[in-house]
């Protein structure tokens, strides 16, 4: 039995190792400094990079955070501080769990209908909003869990000093749970950084440097996808390098979150 379960764990590691090794080997072949700073080149022209796509991904992450973080964090605070035992909070909690299961491509259609269609063009705004929608449920639940872990005695101590509840929450409870909330934020940002599906028809793609956030914007994920399914060898090679950069980005955000979250209790100083 131990052997069977151990074997299951071992076999499951094979695809992971193969994927990581391949992305590293293939990715480094085409990776140089120009890859981060240059625009993509047409087929057959050497050099070129994904500078605009990297910038685009960062832009999209920023817009998504602007949309998703305030709603997510404040809703999370509501659920943990005021929503112990009421129907409304239960409904919100449940809806948020269910929303996090909505496929990302569906969120993409929603953002297309709500933003791209009325504005008559693909844009970073539309892509950021789609990603922001996806962040909301994740941030809400992690914030709630983390704020809940702040011991009640800390709140009581604050009230005993005559500090009103809103101030207690903002300057004592939140500050205590700060690292934890940051962890949740990082994990959700890492998750949307790797999203492709909702961007295909919201942010779309662009071969040039973006002039603003109201125009089609390239992203690492869409660029990797476009290059991966292309028939050209040098584009396929660049897809691997793009995948490597993407993987590094996502894994390092995850790792940063792990460092913050090493021991949940220790977060609460």
């Amino acid at each position: 039995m131990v052997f069977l379960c151990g074997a299951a764990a071992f076999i499951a590691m094979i695809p992971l190792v193969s994927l990581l090794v391949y992305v590293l080997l293939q990715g480094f072949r085409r990776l140089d400094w120009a890859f981060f700073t240059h625009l993509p080149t047409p087929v057959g022209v050497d050099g070129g990079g994904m500078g605009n796509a990297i910038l685009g991904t960062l832009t999209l992450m920023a817009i998504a955070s602007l949309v998703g973080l305030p709603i997510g964090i404040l809703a999370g605070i509501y659920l943990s501080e005021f929503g112990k035992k009421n129907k409304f909070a239960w409904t919100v909690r449940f809806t948020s769990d269910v929303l996090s299961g909505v496929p990302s491509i569906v969120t993409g259609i929603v953002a297309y209908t709500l933003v791209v269609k009325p504005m008559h063009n693909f844009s970073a705004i539309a892509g950021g909003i789609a990603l922001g929608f996806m962040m909301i449920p994740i941030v809400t639940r992690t914030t709630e869990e983390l704020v809940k872990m702040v011991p009640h005695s800390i709140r009581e101590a604050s009230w005993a000093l005559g500090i009103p509840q809103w101030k207690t929450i903002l300057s004592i409870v939140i500050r205590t749970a700060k690292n934890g909330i940051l962890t949740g934020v990082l994990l959700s940002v890492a998750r949307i950084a790797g999203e492709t599906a909702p961007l295909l028809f919201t942010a779309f793609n662009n071969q040039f440097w973006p002039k603003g956030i109201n125009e089609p914007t390239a992203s690492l994920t869409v660029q990797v996808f476009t290059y991966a399914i292309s028939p050209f060898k040098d584009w396929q090679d660049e897809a691997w390098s793009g995948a490597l950069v993407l993987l590094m980005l996502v894994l390092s955000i995850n790792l940063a979150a792990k460092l913050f979250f090493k021991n949940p209790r220790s977060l609460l100083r």
Partner: protein
Amino acid sequence: MNSSAELTNNGGAKPKALPLFSVSSSGFADKLFQKLTALFAFLILFLAVLTAFTLWQASAPTIQKMGWGFLTSTDWDPVQGIFGSVPFVFGTIISSFLALLIATPFGLGISLFLTELAPMKFRDPVAFLVEILAAIPSVVYGLWGIFLLAPFMRVYVDPLLIKAGGTLVGLLTGITLIFVSSALLGKFVKGIYGTALSLVIGLIGGILVGTMKMPFFQGPSTGLSLFTAGVILSIMILPTITAISREVFEAVPNSYRESAKALGATSWETILLAVVKPSRVGLLGAIMLALGRALGETMAVTMVIGNTPQVSANLLAPAHSMASVIANEFSEATSDLHIAALAEIGFLLMVITLVLNVVAHLLVWATATKFQK
């Protein structure tokens, strides 16, 4: 303020307990803050309604034109303006089902290994690796799928399946029959006879199924197929199954295990009776949540499934899925009707995953609270 006054007035009487959530002096600001955060919580409900309503609106043209025929037609012809969702629903459901079939035993095995069996020093590294598996973007899985998995399937796995697929299915049927029959007949035929009977049933069933002519594995294969999509999905949902079933197993109180051991159960029996059995509802929830992920997965699937809208029993033939047709055609859709048809597929996909998620969350919550009582 009020309660402290009572404290002094009551003199020697027992003081009243302070309320847990004390009413502070600046009531108005507190109320305002509560209302403000409640408003943001309300936005989540609004977002859910908005999602459903927008999709419904966007798919209105095809709902009017195709009606229920959209759900039953196998034709997908954007040029003629004929749209039917069957090939996509078929591809999505079969590939997700295949993924579950492969990932469930592995996921449960790994989480049992992590919670019950593995030496302590192995647990954290393995759990960490499984978490990394969850963090890898799906487009990277897709890239790996196109250039490594698909060729691997074409050269090694698919020919084997074409040659010995029937035997394999027969073997699986036989094993399943042995377990099912021993579980069903165990009550009536005791001891060695019961075991022998279920072995015979499994053997006969396995040989019967194994020698039947199977339409499931037929060449020639290109590597881009429903089966490859199922394999890549199984890798992607493995972390979900592992993480949630691990949570469920860890929620089982230690007293269960101790009681089983005290009654003389072997460690295998302990796991089966004291860990797996009480958590089976939660496990069902874990599997359903993983299924929800598999249904909505887009990029990796679209890169290996072959993107051909057809319904075929041959798993090695290219197919299409709901998410991948949206990804492929949405930005290039020429007519409003085409966009509406894709939106309706999105709507269908949302309804399916929504139902699954609601049931799954209720199941997971039910088991988690069961042990807390």
